[in-house]
């Protein structure tokens, strides 16, 4: 059983193409400037369709995390324990990603991370890396 891979659609293709090229992208509303937490088709604030893509710095902080001991499917069983973290990116968007290296004393709320990428079959997905302490 393979891990689920994202299937990009017209709302998200630019994000996943960016990951493949090693660039983290996010959406910003061309009308009101609101940064979208995750990619979508319409601005969650002013509801116009004028969303624009920008390149992110790749830096953020851990909003929350969990060490997973009970995997949801067979595909993740070999990885336990692994970390799932929600990252508040410096630009104001959000990612849910794994943290490289798994659980450890430095995986903490508020810890600084940068986003790297890893290959998942033919798809590239983001992964958080703890900044040097």
């Amino acid at each position: 059983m393979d891990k689920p891979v994202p299937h990009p659609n017209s709302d998200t293709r630019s994000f996943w193409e960016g990951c493949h090229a090693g660039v983290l992208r996010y959406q910003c509303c061309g009308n009101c400037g609101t940064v979208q937490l995750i990619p979508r088709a319409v601005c969650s604030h002013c509801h116009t369709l004028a969303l624009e893509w920008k390149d992110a710095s790749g830096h953020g902080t851990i909003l929350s995390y969990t060490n997973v001991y009970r995997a949801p499917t067979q595909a993740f069983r070999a990885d336990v324990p692994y970390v799932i973290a929600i990252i508040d990116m410096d630009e104001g968007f959000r990612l849910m990603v794994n943290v490289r290296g798994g659980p450890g004393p430095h995986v903490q709320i508020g810890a600084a991370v940068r986003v790297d990428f890893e290959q998942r079959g033919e798809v590239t997905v983001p992964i958080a890396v703890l900044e040097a302490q």
Partner: protein
Amino acid sequence: MSMNAYISGAFDTRVGELPGSSCMGLHAEAAFGAIRDAGLEPGDIDGVLCAYSFTEPHLMLASVFCEHTGIHPNFCAAIQAGGASAAIMIMQAAALVASGQCNHVLVVTGDNRLTGMSRDGAVAALSEVGHPQFERPFGISVPASYALVAQRYMHEYGVQPEHLAAIAVEHRRHASRHPNAHKRELITINDVLQSKEICSPLRLLDCCLISDGGAALVISARNAGGNVKRRVEILGAGQGHTHEHLVSAPSLTDFGCKQSAARAFATAGVRPADIDVAQIYDSFTITLLVELESIGFFGRGEAGPAALEGALGLSGRLPCNTHGGLLSYGHSGAAGGMFHAVEAVRQLRGEAHGRQVEGAHLAFVHGDGGILSAHCSLVFGAA
């Protein structure tokens, strides 16, 4: 203020491990039990609301149910809002009878989630509420999502593992007084703290059960007949919706239960302090703690210490989930939330026997769907 809607019948099937049960069989048992309890005949039912099933999934579950049972209503639909489904079905049924479109609406739920599929199958199916592109590729599950909430909430408000454990312990104490509860043997705080790690900081005994079971209510119009003396009035209802996927939640500590409860209390014209007994969605210990504080039953950071001191117990400040909740009574999909509503009806009728809250006159019922995503709050009053 009146919503012009009454609960005239309530019934729940046995819960737990029920070999030989089926999704539709549990629906039928619950439905006809509730109709009998209301003093009605199946032909009196002119509205039917169902939810969803994991073991017999169907695009039109309410139509499948009506075909299965030979009920031919004027109004028939399925509502899917995860753990908020039961409460939302009740709110919708209230609107149907209050508007004169129906006289008696059957709201019915059930699933044989324990014996009809493997535990792994249930965990995997539930993980599909995660975002297919921005959550599921990273191994998210429902417990992991609530663990992310728990970690943040504990960080901000100083909640300790003992506080969450106290909630699990009190639920088991409640369940020990209910003859039908899935898990009745008492547990200690140490048992919870020593139980298997699932997703930090949540352990096995912080998590709800997986059970077979079904439950139903009949919601009736004011002058529609039935057993008027035993009916319970729906005094208030409200919903709150902020997100579906946790990665898109505007906050990890503030959720739509605040709005849903405020609306329900305002409609009923009561305050949290007026509530005699509460039946609040408890998929995990953290779920209940967050809801208790967001709704206003306790201040931020106060529900945990209060739970340790017995505030949620039968003689506590807010007797909560007196049947044992999802943590210990049982959780059968959408029926899990319906068990809370059935227990509220029993309490308000004075039929809760060894777990009766003396003089219970006002009950609060709350459902939460997704990851604290969809909320529906109800206030019930004794006749």
